[in-house]
């Protein structure tokens, strides 16, 4: 029982990070029909930007701020202007393939200019234990979970309770009508790219102390978050959150109770079941598109 509790906490902590990354998938999809297959590498890169800032002599807190700002510049603004906008004219598929190429490019660039070896990364959450319901739970797990949940709640509040959020939703749901009623659609789309860049930078900050900074570390994350977004519902932020937490827990339980070798297979099997029986995802909305 104690083991199950530990597994649930660890699974939720990992799942919360998957959720952050998965939310980015859904945001980009909703506002610009972008499926970003470089999303995993987007999580890998900010850690290296922060490490580079630290190597240049910046203290950790400053490196975090610089890393987040640089991520928003590179993975938000530059990504949109140099890759998404020019490729979007050619359709969703060429853009998706271009993001795959970007993923390879980012990995190779980090390998070339930083190192192929893993690097340690400081944790923003202190190590140690905290007693919850009679169980000793690691502060790091709780910290990751709390920070990720705060970020997700903040985003949900922004989307649902502010005028800016309503404009973003309007731009996502029907850009033509949104334009007619005076919503600056292009600016709203850019804002979602910046939010996505912020979320991946936060995910990077939380997961890298555990996974270590390595050029390949985005592969697992990108895949897990993609599955999470589909399972939860690609067109709903709440779906991505639920999907992330669910995949995190499922992954840990599968590794513990099924087999470590097949841990990656269990979420995949779950994904196939969801696609077969509820293609819009657990919390997603059925969508029809003109073809």
């Amino acid at each position: 029982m104690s083991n199950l509790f530990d597994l649930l906490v660890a699974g939720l902590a990992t799942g919360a990070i998957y959720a952050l990354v998965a939310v980015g998938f859904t945001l980009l999809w909703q506002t610009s029909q972008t499926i970003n297959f470089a999303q995993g590498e987007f999580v890998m890169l900010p850690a290296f930007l922060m490490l580079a800032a630290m190597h240049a002599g910046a203290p950790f807190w400053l490196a975090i701020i610089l890393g987040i700002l640089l991520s928003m510049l590179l993975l938000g603004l530059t990504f949109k202007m140099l890759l998404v906008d020019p490729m979007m004219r050619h359709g969703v598929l060429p853009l998706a393939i271009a993001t795959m190429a970007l993923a390879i490019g980012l990995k190779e660039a980090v390998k070339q200019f930083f190192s192929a070896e893993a690097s340690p990364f400081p944790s923003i959450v202190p190590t140690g234990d905290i007693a919850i319901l009679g169980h000793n739970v690691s502060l790091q797990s709780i910290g990751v979970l709390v920070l990720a949940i705060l970020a997700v709640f903040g985003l949900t509040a922004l989307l649902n309770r502010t005028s800016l959020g309503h404009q973003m939703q309007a731009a996502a749901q029907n850009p033509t009508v949104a334009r007619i009623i005076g919503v600056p659609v292009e600016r709203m789309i850019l804002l979602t790219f910046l939010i996505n860049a912020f979320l991946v930078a936060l995910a990077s900050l939380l997961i890298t102390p555990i996974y270590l900074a390595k050029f390949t570390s985005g592969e697992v994350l990108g895949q897990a978050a993609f599955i999470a977004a589909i399972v939860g519902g690609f067109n709903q932020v709440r779906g991505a959150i639920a999907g992330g937490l669910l995949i995190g827990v499922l992954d840990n339980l599968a590794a513990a109770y099924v087999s470590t070798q097949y841990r990656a297979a269990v979420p995949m099997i779950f994904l196939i079941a969801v696609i077969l029986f509820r293609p819009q995802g657990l919390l997603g909305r059925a969508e029809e598109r003109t073809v």
Partner: protein
Amino acid sequence: MKSTILAGALLAFATATSVHAQAIKLADVAELSGGGATVGTNWKNGIDLAIEEINARGGVLGRKLEVTHADSQSNPGVARAQVQKALDAEPYVLLGPGYSGSVKVTAPLAAEAGIAQIMGGEAAELTQAGNKFLFRTSFGQQSSMPKVAKYIHDDMKAKSVAVVWVNNDFGRGGRDVVVKELDRLGSKVVADLSTEAGQADFAADVGKIKAANPDAVFVYLNEEESARILKELKRQGVTAPLMGETTLIGQKVIELAGDAANGARGHVGLTTDAPVDLIKAFRDKFAKKYNYVPDHNGLKGYLAVYMVKATTDKMGKVDSKAFADALHGLTIKAADEPGILMDVTFSDTGDIDRQSFLVEVVEGKQVVKQVLPKVK
């Protein structure tokens, strides 16, 4: 005028060709990227350092050493292709790879070409297949694991042990020997956990260890995964003593795992913290050249080149076909060849006999607790 320039160019070409022909060519195939990048980079740097030293002192039998480095990407398939390419260039000796899985698939190629292969793999089976051209630079698992099991049973007094291993040739080989030895000594294996190479998340595996509540945990993973599991063991508050091999307490692991590595113990065939003057000198030279302290793979690469030198000096000629025969049964004394660092004897199977160490990580540093003598 034209003919003078042409003659000059021809002369320069002829001189360059002659210098080139005099060099002894070595080929290195190592894990320069991928999961084994730490292993391969240390190995490569060790080789380069040794070659620089030897060439600065006039080379081997008056000839300079030259090496080409190829990247196996930590992938046995790529390693095989790279080794084939390296062998096509007819090197004097093949160095590497470091991963047992890559050694396993490349050893037959080198044997077929009749070229000696000095490698970093530690899987027990590598030198048990009757290959007459394969040589180790460190202990095979059949030599080290019995010492590990004995330490867990006798010194740690562990009656129950959790064994965590990486599911590849290296991990499986070590796991098979240590489980057999623990069983023979009377320590019960209460958790036998296989993990995947490159695995990032060890929460579930550590959860299983916690549930099994063992007296000791034996960790046998590659370096990066070792660092990740050490962090997770600390995160989940596992207090059972940790025992491993070189890969648990290497410099890179300590750097990556930070505080979490403290208290981990391991049997080490080679360590730069060994209380041996020649090894200390090597460590200083390496750190000065590369700005970091090498792990055992740096030592392995360095030793590989000095094995080439000592054997060639002994033969008195550069003969790649006779090299393997000359190295079998050879004892190289550090007093005669300081680059070999410690006295070493090579068996007829290419295995080595050398003193080894029991090491504990104390405040982020490897501290040698015991020196285990050469067997023969």
